[in-house]
């Protein structure tokens, strides 16, 4: 496929992310305005970070005038999962992909964009990623600015309902492969059970959400990789 049509395909495939982000970042914008960020500052924060959990957590540090070090460490921990995702994506890119495109794609490694990118058929083309990124980040920034500017206009009932949209998207990404592949099904189930245990057990439940996700991801993916290793097909692209 040509680059322009790949880009368009990315734009279209990214529409659900756009809608989900619009809802979630709207909530983020409301919270940002709550600690006196202007719509511009909130929008800039969203544009430069594009990370839901990281941004929400960052607000608490900004609100309490915490140190830059504290903020940096917090972001490192919460967003460490992107490190794993980028490593996985590096295997999906053609080896000759130029550095500039690698740096461009890196900007948009989020849970949702990653989910669509890594599970797409065949090798990952930068043009497709850029399509996904443009439409998704537009929703993310737009929602933030609207939320920060117009906080309480949307009825609460609607915000509550939209809260589930992002999770619905995650489910739509992981369930179809889980339905078709036993090892994926086991991995998903294992991660959900572990995540639940971490949320209820004393001591463990004090871990930050980002830390919990990192530990669960590494543990579940390691167990699956050890017990159910995948066959390597020559030429790269399994799936």
């Amino acid at each position, binding site marked *: 496929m040509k680059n322009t049509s790949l880009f368009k395909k990315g734009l279209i495939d990214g529409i659900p992310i756009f809608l989900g982000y619009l809802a979630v970042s709207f909530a983020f914008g409301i919270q940002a305005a709550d600690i006196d960020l202007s719509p511009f500052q909130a929008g*800039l924060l969203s544009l430069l970070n594009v990370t839901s959990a*990281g941004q929400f957590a960052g607000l608490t540090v900004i609100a309490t005038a915490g140190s830059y070090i504290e903020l940096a460490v917090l972001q490192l921990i919460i967003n460490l999962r992107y490190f794993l995702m980028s490593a996985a994506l590096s295997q999906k890119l053609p080896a000759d992909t130029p550095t500039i495109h690698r740096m461009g794609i890196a*900007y948009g490694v989020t849970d949702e964009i990653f989910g669509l990118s890594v599970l797409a058929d065949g090798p990952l083309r930068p043009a497709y990623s850029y399509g996904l990124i443009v439409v998704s980040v537009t929703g993310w920034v737009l929602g933030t600015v609207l939320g920060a500017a117009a906080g309480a206009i949307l009825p609460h009932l609607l915000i*509550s309902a939209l809260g589930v949209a992002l999770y619905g998207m995650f489910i739509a990404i*992981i369930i179809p492969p889980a*339905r078709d592949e036993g090892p994926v099904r086991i991995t998903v189930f294992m991660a959900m059970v572990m995540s639940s245990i971490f949320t209820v057990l004393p001591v463990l439940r004090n871990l930050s959400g980002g830390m919990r996700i990192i530990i669960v991801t590494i543990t579940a993916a390691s167990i699956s990789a050890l017990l159910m290793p995948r066959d390597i097909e020559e030429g790269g692209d399994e799936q």
Partner: protein
Amino acid sequence: MTPNVYMYILVMALVTYLIRALPLVLIRKEIKSRFIRSFLYYVPFATLAAMTFPSILTSTDMLLSALTGFVTALILAFAKKSLIVVAIGASLAVLIVEALAGIL
């Protein structure tokens, strides 16, 4: 408000970007290790599953509506509906349950 809000934003952005960029820029070869390849294959499923559950249960105003949304999303996804259908379907389910709960 602190006057350093732009510095905060820059610090966050820098850390987050480096986390994302380093593996993509530095890992250029195909990884040969069967374990690492399998591990990376399973990462997204483990991450998204851990992020979704149990957090989805507290993502709305009431447990019942969240559960309904969760089950609706599972059913739609199992039927291989598109992302948007699953996301909107789950939201609608939540909306209906909460609207009913508000009336009753």
